[in-house]
Each structure stands twice: as structure tokens, then as C-alpha cells.
């Protein structure tokens, strides 16, 4: 083997690295290391002139290996490997040494950081002579996309993709798409009617030939990899043949079970066991609730629904159906759930009538809701005073530590709706900080002040029905410190709205596991990079949009859905995609055919060849975990890019100093 000539490139990253690590010293040290032909430092290696240094050295100094000591490889490894490739070097002969995230940013002492930087860099310098040229594996891309979740984010992403001619599978867990937005009355700050702007999109998605709608369905399994996902979807039995159902709702009227809490109305109204969730549902098809339908729960029923159904669509024998889809990209738009205020017992939610959640208020104020849009208390009377309590479950170490971003604004919207419906009603907003950060939001806040809403800076302490004075008797009493006055106030009101934060879906974690990515500490899906890749996940080919990533308002959700659609399109619009070649191989000369790796491979990528008596790696199926390498007693399987010798060399280099 010829002597290798290693080029070392150390980045200052402005002061991000150089402010802590003595870059000159590391460069001087690196130049003395074996095989190192040239060691350079530069203010920003990732800039064009920085990258040019590498290219020039390859071409002019005959550099045969390169290492860039800079930020995390997650950030810029592709950048520098491409630069090496452009310079004529195989990209896999370039390594990165992470001296920013793993060193300068986390170390207090400058000398210690400089030492650590040398160790991290030394490990890579040591390994480089053993690196081998590799070629990325090029795989075909399935042009179809799956969108999971049919709220505004999923609908928007699906429509955008469908408009480019791609086939989209839109999977929705509930019987209809629409999500939370379909439940809202108005949207802040413009007060557009939510239904007026959403239902056209819902019906467009329903009619779009490129969208195959899989409502009342759930994803159960995801296999494969970027460009080539194999997805199992369970289409839950509706007990209604949707090809025959016309959505006439006669079954609903005929059904004898009439007291099922209506989920869409937050349980404030009742529905039948045969139901269509709401009049604008897409698809507009009936569903028989398997937990409530008498026939389906094994009880006696004369089945008036069957008699009522003209097209004979009702089918009690329908079964859940599992289908398999092949898609090149996936967009997750599974949304949020409202933080359930029950654990905040001091607010008496669920105990006292007229202490309601924000979603319940949305339904009460909605013209198509259970009260026909009349804002009324449980006794049917309009409230003369309403307190809206901010930050319920939010900004609290005991519950959710984060700010949910939208609650201040929706609370202001509620106040406006109350003032619009009931001008004489007093409205109190109890808030900690008023966060009105969006376009037109601060103006909306001012407008509400002008409308005479009482703003009390303080988080409500408790809600009770114990009146101590005649004017409190018969009312709910909110106890809150007005922190601007330094006075504790007791507000006698008729209705209390709890502005809960947005929470991750209860099953967000298990869903993320199915798809092979993770969740942030707060439970929302984890993006690949918080700033530059907010719609990507660590799994190539899987994108996220909307409130499943973090609480956000409708404009941000729609923008993110577009970004996710563009990300997916940029992938599936290509015939092929390059995947990492760091996969395993087995030398047939050395394999004893013991089978141990065959059973351990998580992706069934190792097969036993009976004829030759050896194990073989199916390259297309191998994802490169390296479990087989570690498992083999004789060290026969090896992983490209992570050969034992390469890892040994890294260890030696890391400990040489």
C-alpha cells in the first residue's frame, strides 16, 4: 500500500470553535501526525473558499485522504464529502471530526477543549489510512407518497403533491378527514369561518383522482427505506359498503341507539350508533360504531338501519382489512390532542358545570355545534360573565413545561366571539404573559382591549362554586392574583373556559416507533434539525408537518405542510436515490455457515445459502446496523465504512495522546 497523504482542515466556525479551542495549536499538532501531508485552518470551512481548499489540495498536492475538524457530521458531512468528490477524491475517503458539538460547545476550560479536540481529530487521522473508497448504492424510487393524518396539514400536503401528478394515499384514523380545524368556528385573527376555508379543501381532497383516501384506517407496520417503503394499513370495518353508501344519513335517523356521546362535539351532544361525524364529512359515508351498535355487540336489534338503507349498504359481516402500500416517501401529519385539564383538580373541570375546555367552547360557539352557535351555560341561559384562564397545563413543571403558542390567540378569539354574541357579557382573561407574535395578532389584542375585555395579569389559582358574599352566591368563583395590582381578586362568573395547551397525541411515541424516528423530550415528533430541517426526520424519506411536530397555528401548519410536500416531491420526483453504502458483506471463504447472524438480522437481510453452506447478505435489504458483525464469533461479516480495523484505529488514535 502506498503512503497515504492526509489533508487536515480545521474550522474556526467563527468563534464557535476558535473561541474555546486553540485552533492554531491543533493545526500545528496535526501537521506532525503520521501520514499528514498538509494541515490547514480556516474561518469557515463550509464556505466556498473553505471547500475549495480541500479541492485544491487534492488536485495540487495529491492529497489521498482528508479530515475536516468542524461541526457535527450530521450537519456538514454531505457538504465536505461532495467537495472531496468534486476534487476527484472518493467521498468516503473524507472523515469528519466533530470538535464543535462534542467539544468546544460543551467544555468549560479552553486547554481541556484543545486537548479533547486533538483526541477527536487524532482518532480520525488514525483511521483514515484504512478507509476504502465506497460507492453509494443507487436504488429506484417509488413515486407514490403516503400522508398520515387528514387534518389541515395532511390535506394541504396531499393536495399539493396530487397537483404535481403524484399518487397520494391519505390515511386518516377517524371516519372523516378534517381534524381539529373542522371543529373550530372562527380562526384568529382574521375571523374567517373555519368551515368556509376548510371544507373546500376537504372536498377537493375527496374528489382529487390522484388522492386515494383511506379514512377510518391506521398504519400498523412500516418496512423498507427511503424511496421504497412497504406500509401495512388496516382499514377498519365501517360495516357499511362505502361504494354503495350515498351519505343520506337515513340509517342514522333510524338507529335505535341514540345516546352515544358525539366525539366531534366533545361529548356535548349525542349521536346514533350509525353515524356520520358531521354534515361536511369527507368521505360522506356512514359508519356503524362497533362498541355501541346493538347487532355488533351481540344484542338483539330489529336493525331498522338495514330497512332504512335504500342501496343496501349495511354489511354486519364486514371485517377489518389489511392492505399493503408501496410508497417512496411518507408525510406524518398526525396532529395533537388538547391537554386534558382533569388533573388540574383546582380548576374543577369535570366536577363543576360550566367549567369547560377550549374545544368545548369551540363547539358551543360554532353555528353547527350542539347549541346552534348560541353561547350558553348548561342551563341554556347565556352567561353574564365568563373567565378565560390561560396556560392550563402549560408552562408548568408539573405538566407541560412549554408554551403552546396558540392559546393566547384562541383565548382572545373566544373573548371576541362572546362580545360579538353577547355584548353585555363581561369577559375576563387571566393570563401570565400575552403572546401575540404573528401577523395581525398584536393588532387583534389591541382590538380586544378596545372591545372592553378585562385583562388580568395572573394565573388563576382555583375555581370553586363557594360564594362568600351575596354577589358570589350561585356563581363560579375564580380566585386569581392581579399581579399588576398586587391584589387577589375573586371573580364571580357564570362560565369558565380553560385554555389548555396542545399536547402530543397519547400514542405519538408508539407511532414514531412504527415509523422509525423519535420524539423530543416534550413528546412531539423530533425533527432532523430544529432550524434547517424542521420538516424532516432522522429517517430519510419520512417528513413531518403540523402540530405533530410542535404546537402551531393554522398559517404555520399550512406552510409546513407545503414544505413537507416539497421535500417529499424532491425525493419521489427522481427515478433513483443514493443510499449509504455502509452495509455488511460476508466473505464466503471464511463463513462456517453457523447461522448465528441469520437469525439476528433485524431486517432479514441475511440468507443461508444451502448450496454453498454459507450466509449471504442481501444488499438491497441490509440497512447497515452492524449487528451481524458484532455477533459473529469469527468476525466474518464486516461492515463497509465500519470495519473492525477502522474502529480499532479510531480507538488507538483517540487514546494515543
Amino acid at each position, binding site marked *: 500500500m502506498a503512503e497515504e497523504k492526509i489533508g487536515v482542515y480545521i474550522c474556526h466556525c467563527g468563534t464557535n470553535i476558535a473561541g474555546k479551542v486553540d485552533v492554531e495549536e491543533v493545526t500545528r499538532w496535526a501537521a506532525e501526525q503520521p501520514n499528514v501531508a498538509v494541515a490547514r485552518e480556516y474561518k469557515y470551512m463550509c464556505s466556498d473558499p473553505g471547500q475549495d481548499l480541500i479541492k485544491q489540495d487534492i488536485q495540487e498536492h495529491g492529497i489521498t485522504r482528508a479530515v475536516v475538524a468542524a461541526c457535527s457530521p450530521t450537519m456538514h458531512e454531505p457538504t465536505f464529502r461532495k467537495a472531496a468528490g468534486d476534487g476527484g477524491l472518493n467521498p468516503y475517503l473524507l472523515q469528519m471530526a466533530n470538535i464543535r458539538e462534542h467539544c468546544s460547545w460543551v467544555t468549560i476550560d479552553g486547554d481541556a477543549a484543545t486537548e479533547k479536540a486533538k483526541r477527536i481529530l487524532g482518532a480520525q487521522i488514525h483511521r483514515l489510512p484504512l478507509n476504502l473508497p465506497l460507492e453509494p448504492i443507487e436504488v429506484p424510487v417509488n413515486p407514490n407518497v403516503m400522508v398520515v393524518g387528514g387534518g389541515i396539514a395532511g390535506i394541504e400536503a396531499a393536495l399539493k403533491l396530487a397537483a404535481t401528478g403524484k399518487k397520494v394515499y391519505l390515511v386518516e384514523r377517524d371516519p372523516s378527514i378534517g381534524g381539529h380545524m373542522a371543529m373550530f368556528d372562527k380562526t384568529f385573527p382574521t375571523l374567517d369561518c373555519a368551515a368556509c376555508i376548510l371544507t373546500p379543501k376537504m372536498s377537493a381532497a375527496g374528489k382529487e383522482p390522484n388522492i386515494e383516501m383511506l379514512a377510518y384506517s391506521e398504519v400498523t407496520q412500516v418496512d423498507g427505506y427511503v424511496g421504497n417503503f412497504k406500509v401495512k394499513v388496516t382499514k377498519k370495518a365501517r360495516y357499511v359498503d362505502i361504494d354503495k353508501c350515498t351519505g343520506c344519513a337515513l340509517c342514522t335517523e333510524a338507529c335505535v341507539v341514540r345516546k352515544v356521546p358525539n366525539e366531534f362535539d366533545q361529548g356535548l351532544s349525542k349521536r346514533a350508533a350509525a353515524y356520520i361525524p358531521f354534515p361536511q364529512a369527507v368521505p360522506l359515508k356512514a359508519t356503524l360504531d362497533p362498541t355501541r351498535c346493538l347487532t355488533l355487540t351481540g344484542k338483539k336489534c330489529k336493525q331498522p338501519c338495514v330497512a332504512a338503507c335504500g342501496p343496501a349498504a349495511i354489511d354486519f359481516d364486514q371485517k377489518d382489512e389489511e392492505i399493503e402500500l408501496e410508497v417512496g416517501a411518507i408525510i406524518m401529519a398526525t396532529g395533537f390532542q388538547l391537554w386534558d385539564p382533569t388533573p*388540574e*383538580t*383546582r380548576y374543577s373541570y369535570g*366536577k363543576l358545570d360550566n367549567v369547560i375546555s377550549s374545544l368545548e367552547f369551540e363547539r358551543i360557539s360554532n353555528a353547527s355545534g350542539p347549541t346552534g352557535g348560541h353561547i350558553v351555560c348548561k342551563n341554556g341561559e347565556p352567561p353574564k360573565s365568563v373567565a378565560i384562564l390561560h396556560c392550563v397545563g402549560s408552562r408548568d413543571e408539573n405538566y407541560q413545561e412549554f408554551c403552546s403558542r396558540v392559546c393566547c390567540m384562541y383565548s382572545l378569539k373566544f373573548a371576541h366571539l362572546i362580545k360579538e354574541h353577547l355584548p353585555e357579557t363581561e369577559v375576563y382573561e387571566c393570563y401570565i404573559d400575552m403572546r401575540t407574535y404573528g401577523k395581525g395578532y398584536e393588532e387583534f389584542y389591541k382590538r380586544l382591549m378596545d372591545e372592553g375585555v378585562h385583562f388580568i395579569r395572573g394565573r388563576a389559582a382555583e375555581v*370553586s*362554586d*363557594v360564594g*362568600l358574599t351575596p354577589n358570589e352566591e350561585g356563581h363560579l368563583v375564580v380566585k386569581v392574583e392581579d399581579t399588576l395590582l398586587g391584589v387577589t381578586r375573586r371573580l364571580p362568573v357564570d362560565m369558565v373556559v380553560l385554555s389548555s395547551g396542545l399536547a402530543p397525541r397519547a400514542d405519538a411515541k408508539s407511532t414514531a416507533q412504527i415509523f422509525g424516528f423519535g420524539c423530543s423530550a416534550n413528546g412531539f415528533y423530533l425533527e432532523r434539525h430544529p432550524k434547517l430541517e424542521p420538516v424532516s426526520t432522522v429517517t430519510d424519506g419520512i417528513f413531518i408537518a403540523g402540530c405533530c411536530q410542535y404546537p402551531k397555528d393554522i398559517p404555520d401548519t399550512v406552510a409546513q405542510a407545503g414544505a413537507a410536500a416539497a421535500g417529499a416531491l424532491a425525493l419521489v420526483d427522481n427515478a433513483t436515490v443514493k443510499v449509504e453504502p455502509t452495509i455488511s458483506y460476508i466473505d464466503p471463504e471464511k463463513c462456517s455457515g453457523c447461522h448465528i447472524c441469520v437469525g439476528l438480522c433485524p431486517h432479514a437481510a441475511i440468507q443461508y445459502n444451502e448450496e454453498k453452506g454459507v450466509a449471504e447478505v442481501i444488499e438491497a435489504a441490509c440497512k447497515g446496523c452492524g449487528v451481524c458483525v458484532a455477533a459473529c464469533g469469527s468476525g466474518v461479516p464486516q461492515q463497509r465504512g465500519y470495519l473492525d480495523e477502522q474502529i480499532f484505529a479510531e480507538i488507538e488514535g483517540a487514546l494515543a495522546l
Partner: protein
Amino acid sequence: MKYLYYPGCSAESTGKAYDISTRTVMEKLGVELAELDDWNCCGATSYFSTREIDSFAIAARNLSIAQQQGDDDLCVICNACYTTLAKTNRYMAESAHVYEQVNGALNAVGRSYDGTKPVRHIMDVLINDVGLEAIESKVTRRLTGLKVAPYYGCQYSRPIGSFDDTEDPQTMDRFFEALGADVLTDFPAKLKCCGGMMMLTNADVALRLCHEILKSAKDMGADVIVAACPLCEMNMEGYQPRVNSAFGTDYNIPVMYFTQLAGLALGADPKQLGLGMQAVSCAPVLAAIPA
């Protein structure tokens, strides 16, 4: 079932009936109580105000004696004693400084303590060790129809909440349901402060707080308020006439230690429950329980 028993100072005077009825109830349930030898005041809330470490030290003297005296858990009846003793364990675990200082003080009097003696509220013992089923099986006089307002008091579950919720405790509700009572489970004042020691120093404040509790009980139609703390009982019951004169009310609501009412359900003689000691008569309660 055996426990070491810490009665607390009040049990020797104003809260005597709590001590007497506790012993009776536990005997009826077959629970053996061995009084802690030569116990001292737990320090209560006042001691925290001198030097924090003194309060832990004097509380730890009790715990150190308990550890010497036997392996059984230490059962406490007074809410404040319970919180003080449990808090001492907790802070000794949280802070090495507290641990060292406390042991230094104990060593000075030939004692030591490792911070691990389990401190149990009597209700914790009843619900989690004796068990509601066992208790229910021993009821001879069900409290059918008796409207019981369960008053927990501040330091029952606050601040630690080790055996019940800090905002919405339920154990006393469940306990009296097992005894057949008509428990006012939504009693809104169940955790409202009675004013504590402030009845002596800022009576206006404390009377007002008691007024709120009594009003709430009256509004709900309570036949009796049950308490788990001598100071709470004293404030709500002993000071009822003064509440009445201060607020122009006419409350006459019996307030009992929960062990007194439980004792009746378990068939104990009223005399064994210290029932003659109340300033507000309990006769209506006795009359209301079916024989």
C-alpha cells in the same frame, strides 16, 4: 399488624379525644400500637421558624428512638406532626448537609438516625395496610344516611402527597363510604386552611377561614365534619361560637375526629371515643346513626 405510635403534644390536651379514639379504633381492627418511648414535640410549624436544622434535629430525635424501639413503621395521627416527621426524612435524603448536621446534634446526646424510618399517617395505615374490605367487614353500625363532610386539612397531603392527592384527596371519602356513610365527596372546603396557630395570634384571619369551611359544610347539608388534625378540629369546633358572633351566623355543626365517628361504626362505646369532650355537642350525630 403492629405499629409504633406517635400521639403528638395535642393528644395530651386539646386533642385528647383523638388519641383515645385512635387507640380504640385500632384495637377494634386488631392493630397493635406501641407508643413511642419518651417522644418529644415534633417541632410543628413554629420550630421551622427558628433554625431549619433545629426543627429537623428535634424531629429526628423521635425517629431515632423509633428506629431503636423496633422495626415497625411509625404511625402518626396529627397532620402537622406527620408532615414534620416525613419532611425530615425527605430532607435528610435530599441534602447531605441536613443529614450531617442532624446526626451531629443527635450524636451530642448519644443518638443517631439514618433517615429511613417509614413515617405513616394513620389514614395511610388504615387504607393501605388494614384495607377497606377488612374495615367494612368489622362494621357493626353502618353510618347509613349520615352526611359526612370529610375535612382533610392542609398538611394531610400537602406538600408531599405520598398517600393521597395534594389538590383532591380521596382517602377519607373512601374510608367513610366503606363505613356506609353518605360522604359529601365534593365538599369544596375539604382542603381549605383552618388558620392553624393563627387562631391565637390573628384571630380575625382564622375565624374568617373557619367561617368559610363551616359555611361550605352547612351549604352542603353536612350532619358532621370529620377531621384528622387536632388543631383543625379545635379551630372548627371549639371556635364555632366565636365564628357565629363574628359573622352573625348560627352554625352548630358537630366536628369529630374521624376516628371517633369510625369508632361508632365499629361498635365502640362513646365513652371509649372521648365523645363527651366536644364543645359542640355530638348528640345529633349519635341520634342520626341507625342502631
